[in-house]
């Protein structure tokens, strides 16, 4: 457990850098007060924790069942990246035309998310929690040495606590949102990051399919 915490503390800045492209545009785009931003951060971190715990279970099973099949692994990640980019794009376009776009967004996202936009940070956090950033891979290596699934999950929980300390200043970005232009920047930045994740998703999916095809 202490090993997980220390690993989290040592690699927290990278974790922030990894999650910031998703979190920052959201906080800027929402333009809420600092107190509300802490709530958003809480939701985001909760989602991330759920992603971590789920991933610790799924990774343990995947490792057992799929025997490190790299091409399939890329396919899964590709889909996750594309889902994340879709969510960011949805976030970018849903606000300006909130009333009339409600019907259309329901067909893109599960009804629960479309009707409760407050859930979005939770979903974004969950999806970033499923991504394999470098410190996460380190944690995965550490957790793989655990004897049981429970130990592995605890390792991840403490790793999460170590990294989360670095997220505390993020809501202070709310102090800047009184500048109207920053909201637009936040929304547009969400698009840019979405495009980037979409590229990654297409590359991983395409690369995975090509590898699968080429493998006899």
């Amino acid at each position, binding site marked *: 457990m202490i090993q997980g915490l220390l690993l989290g503390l040592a690699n927290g800045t990278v974790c922030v*850098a990894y999650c910031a492209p998703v979190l920052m545009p959201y906080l800027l785009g929402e333009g809420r007060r600092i107190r509300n931003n802490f709530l958003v951060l809480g939701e985001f971190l909760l989602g991330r924790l759920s992603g971590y715990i789920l991933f610790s279970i799924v990774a343990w099973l995947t490792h057992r069942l799929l025997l490190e099949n790299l091409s399939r692994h890329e396919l899964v990640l590709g889909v996750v990246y594309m889902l994340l980019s879709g969510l960011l794009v949805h976030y970018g376009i849903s606000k300006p035309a909130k009333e009339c776009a409600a019907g259309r967004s329901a067909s893109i996202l599960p009804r629960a998310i479309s009707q409760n936009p407050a859930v979005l940070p939770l979903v974004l956090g969950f999806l970033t929690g499923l991504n394999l950033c470098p410190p996460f891979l380190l944690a995965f290596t550490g957790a793989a040495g655990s004897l049981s699934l429970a130990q592995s999950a605890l390792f991840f929980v403490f790793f999460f606590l170590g990294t989360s300390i670095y997220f505390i200043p993020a809501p202070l970005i709310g102090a800047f949102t009184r500048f109207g232009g920053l909201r637009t*920047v936040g929304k547009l930045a969400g698009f840019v990051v979405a495009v980037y994740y979409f590229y990654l998703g297409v590359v991983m999916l395409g690369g995975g399919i090509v590898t699968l095809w080429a493998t006899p």
Partner: protein
Amino acid sequence: MGNTVASKAPAGSGEPRKLVKAALLSFPMVLLTGLMTTQGRLPSAAPALIAWAISFAFLNVLFFLMVYTGKTHRFRAVLFVVTAVCFVITFMSNLLAARGSLALTRDNVINGETPFCHLVIPMTLLPAVLKRTVIFPGAMLTGFAAIATMLVIWLGASLALGRGWCSWVCFFGGLDEGFSCIRKKPVIKNIDPRWTYMPHAVLLGAALTSTFTLSPTYCQWLCPFKAVTEFEKVDSFRTVLATIIFVSLFAGLVVVLPVLTRRRIQCGLFCPFASFQSFFNKLNIFDIRIDRDKCTDCNHCVNTCPTFSIDKPSVARGSALLSCTKCGHCVDACPKKAVSFHIKGTRAGLATNTARLLFLYPAYIFAAAIGGGMINGALLLALSSFRNLI
């Protein structure tokens, strides 16, 4: 101090006094460009001497015309566009000489043989602070376009010119500007002002993704100029996709949209470096002011600004936006001479041509330092090729 060559005597009057004044004011530039382009020694080989003479004359004739006519934009634009075209030619030939190929291979990246480009500077800052690493695969001190060399040039020019860099020094911007000058009138006139926030968004997105991947994501995925400089060797699904993106972005942002809008779309609505460089306008002593006593709110400056750096509220405030590139287009276009170069701390509308001249010297020195070498290099290449042909 406001008495000027241009304002006292109109352009083309041919008065000897005006000519002498313009020649005297241009003389320091003759000396400086002479020193910069020769480094104290004239080239001995005939093609090199001819190339040098043409580029030297070209640089100084343009500067003389700027001083003599009092017009900035049209002569700057000529130099800017020629520099960009010559940059593409010399860059490619330098790459061929240094690496033997235009395509960037994995070995080139590992060996740090990628020429450093100023566009990536803002994306390298966060990783440098957080991880103490330069995420660009270039050489720090040696080779063509080393990181340290480019950083020193950029820092000097940024302090001297602010975002003036984007209209005087950037060797990519001329491509954008060249295409924006092709049509006489724009086809697309109304552009939503919200798009002017896009460079900040691209900067934010690129800086954050570069930090978590520890790689220059803008260069890898979004830079339109990859289409005309170096490109990654197309040998995988990823590089095919990246190449399609580079070519599409170049065609859209640098060619088609500038032609249709008569604006520098890449520079004004997309480039993340432009967003970053805007903040240096705060440090720089020069800016563009609008004399409210002379201004008739005709909005000619708003409609002509190639980088969307003047809007109606800024005209009402009497100054250009922070994103102003000091290209001089609005100054030249204003029918009432209400728009002028200005030194911060002085009264707007006073000594306007002195302020312009004081800005022109450092701006042109940087433009000549960057452009001179490229024009010279391209001419030398052309002359050598011609000699080989005959």
